[in-house]
């Protein structure tokens, strides 16, 4: 059957297509399954927590047994977690807990090595280096034209937080520890500080008082000009299907009259109960088929003019683990490769270890002939230096591996 006018079901079909196209994956909602829970949204790859649910080792607030329901979000896994109160409640409460998926980090918790921190390393005429900071890893070499070039490696970060403490002993017998009052650092400006009282903080929460959700057609098999199509447009979110299908806003949908609701239910059920052999054929005259337009163009055009026959060395650094506790041994690797058009000579790789990295003696492994040298640096660690005995041809590479103990 081919119709010449716009059938009401085609109206529904078109509305669903427009709805699916308009509902991208950028805005999915996570909300408490129980009524009155707070809502958090996903923003890109990160996880933006609500005031009641933070990323990581987090459970529902105030000891309330409210499992969180995850809707439409695939980047975070959930598991059950137990929370215990020390009071009279003998039975522990079980909460749902999101796995750590923090978008933020603290650089103090990471141990970094590699790169070239400011000020940049400068090679002087007396073969010394200036500006070599702890954590820096560079390679300097001489090209075929006699120029000395310096390249910095990438930075490797290990999650290795270390905690220390400050102790103060006070009391009647503590006076003997004080040598004398060097200064008074008590503030004189603040007369009174209003300390926040726990349990008295009121927070506003936006909650839905009532939600009418109608089940619409979950899947509509699209058929155009009698040719079966393989793609089935699946409605990903069923919250506002009815409003979107009728191309009305939510406020207008709620104001439908009784006979209009029956009409919509009839069309919705009709779309669901169609079988394959009695597929609906729809001809849409006044609607254009959805098309994907890629807005790609060339923003700029850069010409890199490399000197003929000039060698260039690329240095990269890596570690065999991403986290380490004090005392753990980490294997670092430094790989240099000649990616230029000519050989390079007098290649020297320098790794200035940071304070919390201690070189493990005799742990060097290199696939080329090198002269190794270690010097105590200003960070009370070692400055490791490898000098390649041979030149590095075009496309050749050398990998140096060594071990460090995390302090």
């Amino acid at each position: 059957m081919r119709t010449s006018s716009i059938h009401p079901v085609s109206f529904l079909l078109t509305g669903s297509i427009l709805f699916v196209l308009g509902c991208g994956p950028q805005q999915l909602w996570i909300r408490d399954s129980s009524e009155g829970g707070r809502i958090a949204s996903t923003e890109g790859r990160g996880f933006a927590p609500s005031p009641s649910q933070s990323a990581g080792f987090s459970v529902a607030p105030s000891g309330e047994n409210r499992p969180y329901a995850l809707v439409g979000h695939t980047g975070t896994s959930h598991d059950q977690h137990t929370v215990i109160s020390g009071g009279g409640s003998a039975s522990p409460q079980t909460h749902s807990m999101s796995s750590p998926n923090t978008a933020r980090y603290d650089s103090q918790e990471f141990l970094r090595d590699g790169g070239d921190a400011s000020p940049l390393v400068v090679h002087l005429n007396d073969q010394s280096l200036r500006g070599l900071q702890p954590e820096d890893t560079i390679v300097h070499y001489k090209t075929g034209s006699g120029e000395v070039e310096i390249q910095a490696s990438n930075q490797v970060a290990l999650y290795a937080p270390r905690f220390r403490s400050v102790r103060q002993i006070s009391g009647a017998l503590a006076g003997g520890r004080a040598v004398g009052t060097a200064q008074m650092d008590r503030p004189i400006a603040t007369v009174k500080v209003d300390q926040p009282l726990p349990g008295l903080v009121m927070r506003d929460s936006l909650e839905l008082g009532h939600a009418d959700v109608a089940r619409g057609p979950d899947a509509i098999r699209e058929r155009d000009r009698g040719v079966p199509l393989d793609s089935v447009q699946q409605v990903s979110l069923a919250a506002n299907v009815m409003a979107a299908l009728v191309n009305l806003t939510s406020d207008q949908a709620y104001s439908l009259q009784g006979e209009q609701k029956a009409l919509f239910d009839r069309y919705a059920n009709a779309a669901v109960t169609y079988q394959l052999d009695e597929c609906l054929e729809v001809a849409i005259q006044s609607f254009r088929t959805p098309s994907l337009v890629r807005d790609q163009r060339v923003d700029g055009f850069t010409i890199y003019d490399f000197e003929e026959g000039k060698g260039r060395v690329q240095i990269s650094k890596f570690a065999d683990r991403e986290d380490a506790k004090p005392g753990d041994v980490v294997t670092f690797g430094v790989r240099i490769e000649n990616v230029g058009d000519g050989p390079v000579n007098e290649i020297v790789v320098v790794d200035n270890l940071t304070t919390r990295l201690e070189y493990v003696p005799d742990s060097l492994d290199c696939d080329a002939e090198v002269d190794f040298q270690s010097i105590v640096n200003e960070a009370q660690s070692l400055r490791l230096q490898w000098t390649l005995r041979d030149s590095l041809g075009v496309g050749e590479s050398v990998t140096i591996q060594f071990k460090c103990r995390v302090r």
Partner: protein
Amino acid sequence: MSKVTTLNTLLVAGILSLVFLNGRQIQAAEPADYLSRVSINPVLRASDPPGSVGQARLMGRGPVVGYYQPVAVTGPEGVHFSLPAGGGMTESTPRLEAGFLIGSVYRFQVTRIPGALGAELFPTVEVIDRTYPPQHLATRYPIEIQLDIEDFRTAINGQMVTRVIYLEDPQTAVPEVQKASTNVPLEISEFQDPLAVADEYGRPVAIVRIGSLTPPKQSALLPEFFFGYPTWAPFPNAKMQLSKQTDNVPSERE
């Protein structure tokens, strides 16, 4: 003639004063200007009532509300720790591991102190900031609170020990391998603020207060002693036995 000369003199003096004072602000000296600005934490101090610093952190930035920060407490060999749970205490363990809410104050029990047979201490720990570990590393890298025998002996003698645990800045870290023997605290005098000192060396994350306060005999006062029994979260897969009644901690239901 003399009047004209006087007027000219005044005019020149006025112009010169305007020229020299142009762009300058004349203000009275503030008394605080004469004080050193080093080591000043103007609002929060470690000597504030337990919970004040952590509650202030909850009003700051970041996802800290509702976060159970993993914490591990260790001590010298032989010392055991336990937490209140279900009206009693948990099974004592030489390494106390739990997730604590930021801003809440948790009182735990210390037993089997070497050289002090039968003595028990009830220190408090207040988590004032959190860490941001990568995925699945939260409980592997808890805030390590390492207490030593000096803490317990001092507290048994009637003095107060305040420890501020801080996350060390790797740029200024102590260049030695951290072991139990080398992880000694930085001792400061009672005229300094440990919170401010810790803030200079890193990021303060917890405050431990060790005194000799013992639980009250009346069970009605126990919730106040344990700071309202804030909820805590055991580590996943932790073997823990609850509701072990001890002699010194009367049950709330008595």
